[in-house]
């Protein structure tokens, strides 16, 4: 077997190690020029890629920071709201503010009623009535034209005139006939 292999090698070696192939004239110089051109392009591409990568990194970092700030602010706000809802002191304060608001509103409404009651044209003022169920009913009672007319009709009689003036004084209500 070894002898046979040795013989084979000798046969191949006798042919020689010449590859047999050739290259076109000036092939290596042409390849050199071509490759140097390609390498220059590759270099430009690499620089461009690096620039894009740098820009992407900066943009991504800025976006990440913006997202982080947004999420943090959102979470903090939510947390504060939850704390406020769970904190009895803050709840009491909030309730008191609400009550105060209602009181102020009611006071404003009564002032408005008083002002409208002493004007000469109550009908026109009716359209400016404030909202609020209690105030509205009072307002309507006091400025009801039919009611006023009935009172006027009653007190047109001279016999009732003094009584009428007294009643107006008692009610702290003045109507200029």
């Amino acid at each position, binding site marked *: 077997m070894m002898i046979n*292999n040795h013989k*084979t*090698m000798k*046969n*191949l070696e006798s*042919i020689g*190690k*010449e*590859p*047999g*192939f*050739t*290259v*076109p004239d000036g*092939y*290596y110089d042409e*390849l*050199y020029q*071509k*490759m*140097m051109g*390609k*390498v*220059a392009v*590759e*270099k430009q591409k690499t620089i461009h890629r690096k620039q894009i990568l740098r820009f992407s990194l900066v943009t991504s970092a800025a976006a990440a920071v913006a997202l982080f700030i947004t999420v943090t602010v959102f979470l903090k706000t939510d947390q504060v709201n939850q704390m406020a809802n769970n904190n009895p002191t803050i709840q009491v304060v909030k309730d008191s503010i609400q009550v105060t608001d209602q009181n102020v509103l009611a006071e404003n409404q009564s002032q408005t009623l008083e002002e409208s009651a002493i004007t000469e044209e109550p009908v026109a003022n009716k359209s400016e009535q404030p909202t609020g169920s209690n105030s509205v009913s009072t307002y309507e009672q006091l400025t009801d034209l039919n009611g006023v007319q009935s009172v006027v009709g009653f007190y047109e009689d001279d016999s009732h005139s003094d009584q009428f003036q007294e009643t107006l004084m008692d009610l702290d209500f003045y109507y200029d006939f």
Partner: protein
Amino acid sequence: MAHPTDEYILEMFGSEKTKEQAFGLLMRKYNTEIYNSVRRIVYSHDDSDDIVQNVLIKVWKHLGSFRGDSSLKTWITRICVNESLTFIEKKKRMLQIDDEEYMERVISNIPDDTHFSSDQILQLVQKGIQMLPEKQRVVFTLRYYDEMPYEEMSKVLDTSVGALKTSYHFAVKKIEEFLAKH
């Protein structure tokens, strides 16, 4: 003209200013070896030209990360082998042909090839080489033409020395049988 050492080329390549110059020196030094390594595997000059350009672009891109675990020549040969085998596989897929059909195509082109010797014996040897399975052909050409030590071949092909010796032995036997028949 004496070629610069690999260390000198690598040092120059490390600097952005002299990178292109270093690559030029590398090309001058290894152009022929790269071309021969590729052409022995794929045979066709046109195919070899495409592959050589791919190899050189890869060398340009990755030489900066060359760690020096092996010699520069071994590293470049490894790229040549990988690129050539990948090219053959792609071509077979593109033409939708199997190994045997591909081999027949290559062999049938040998007599008319203007970039190959008209010597009948050399043509016969080349046919014998092209009939080998791709990996065995690589082992044969690296050992027979480049006279690469088995240890170095082991690094190039990621194969044990024993397996390489066996593969080379069978390759020689097949070529000899082919020569005997023709």
